[in-house]
């Protein structure tokens, strides 16, 4: 495997979670996206939590190593590969891995993401507003829902962002109770599956709260991303929804705790020049 991305990272999870491998060789990996990076972070944590003896050999490609270091990945997982990045390497990361814990800190986190984005791209007023509103809604889902049962010690909410030739990828992840765990607290939804929960939340705009004003945020974000011809990935438990401008579906994936989400936004929304495919 040479690329760890939204499309491929479940292959890694499958080997560790379903096949029980204890040694993961990622030395030949030449590219990692922020979504896969956050899942690797959670996978390491999850393995530690289960006292599993998972050994990972990290990518050898210097550029990938530098980027992972600049994203704060090695520092996050407490790896010895985690020396501080050189200043020029730090610039390769658009927004390094950032913890999202309590609701009170979300404004500050959003401001940080927004500042990093504005430093590189001339945001249009409406895209700036829309993107900020999306971040606020997605980030606050972590304190609102990841520990809805009150039984999770640390849901480990994290987010990161990276820019590419034609797009920006925003990734948000936690290892909390997941969509099923949250929606399952609502009367009448106790026995639902992961894919039913995903469907109910994204298609019907439901939330674990019966209050009429709650819910619908993810459904609206999906609509906005579609209108931008962007891509959207949401993984919870053993269900994975993915769509881009060509369409999409819900897929079965190896079970993993929490919710992991990625939004890919075309750079043209920021009035930035795009590279022709």
């Amino acid at each position: 495997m040479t690329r760890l991305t939204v499309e491929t990272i479940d292959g890694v999870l499958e080997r560790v979670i379903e096949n029980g491998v204890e040694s993961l060789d990622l030395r030949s990996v030449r590219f990692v996206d922020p979504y896969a990076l956050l899942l690797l972070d959670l996978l390491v944590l999850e393995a530690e939590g289960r006292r599993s003896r998972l050994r990972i050999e990290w990518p050898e490609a210097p550029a990938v190593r530098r980027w992972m270091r600049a994203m704060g990945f090695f520092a996050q997982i407490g790896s010895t590969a985690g020396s501080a990045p050189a200043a020029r390497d730090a610039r390769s990361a658009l927004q390094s891995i950032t913890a999202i814990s309590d609701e009170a800190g979300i404004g500050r986190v959003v401001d940080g993401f927004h500042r990093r984005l504005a430093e590189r791209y001339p945001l249009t007023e409406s895209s700036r507003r829309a993107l900020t509103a999306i971040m606020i809604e997605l980030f606050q889902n972590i304190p609102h829902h990841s520990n809805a049962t009150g039984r999770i010690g640390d849901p480990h909410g994290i987010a990161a962002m990276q820019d590419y030739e034609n797009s920006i990828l925003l990734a948000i992840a936690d290892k909390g109770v997941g969509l099923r765990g949250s929606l399952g607290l609502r009367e009448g939804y106790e026995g639902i599956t992961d894919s039913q929960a995903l469907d109910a939340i994204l298609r019907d705009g439901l939330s674990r709260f019966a209050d009429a004003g709650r819910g619908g945020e993810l459904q609206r974000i999906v609509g906005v991303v579609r209108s931008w011809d962007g891509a959207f990935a949401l993984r919870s438990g053993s269900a994975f929804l993915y769509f881009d401008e060509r369409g999409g579906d819900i897929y079965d994936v190896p079970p993993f705790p929490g919710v992991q989400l990625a939004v890919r936004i075309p750079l043209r929304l920021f009035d930035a020049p795009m590279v022709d495919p």
Partner: protein
Amino acid sequence: MAAMHVEEFRIAQFGARLGTRLEGESARERLESLLRSLPEEGQVRLSLDGLEVLSTSFADELVGKAYQRVVDGAFGDRTMVLETPSRELAEGIDVKLAQRRLAMLCLQGGRWRLVGFHTPALSETLQRILEKGRTTTRELAEELDLQMSACVNRVARLAELRLIRRRKIGMKGPQDIFEIHSILSG
């Protein structure tokens, strides 16, 4: 009817970019305190001026929940009207009020519209009331070419949503006759 007491509540006093429910909850305490301090039939003009971003979560926590309590009668006959410099800024409020099946008067550049859940029939009736400032169900029924019962139902719904004020002034047969007032005048 005496001149209405109107107080402005600028949401931007809490910041230019507002998003979390926690922030909305804290702002709602201030809004509800202002509503309580107004005389009976007073009005809060909720201003979005100076805001850059207003998320749907914040909109629901501040406006959706407070307006639900206004409609439920928790603040007597006091009313709330939205004022926005742009349609885009009011979108979150529009979405959340619709989700709660509520509707609110929204002023933009001297014009009004309804945000939230509404029907063409409700808008048509409200438009006539706002144009006239004061009318009766009988006059409205004639002008809108409606059966009296249909007109009374529309007026009742508008009054329930605190989009107008009505006062019973008599009866005609089994029907109550109401005097109706716009909440933008007075």
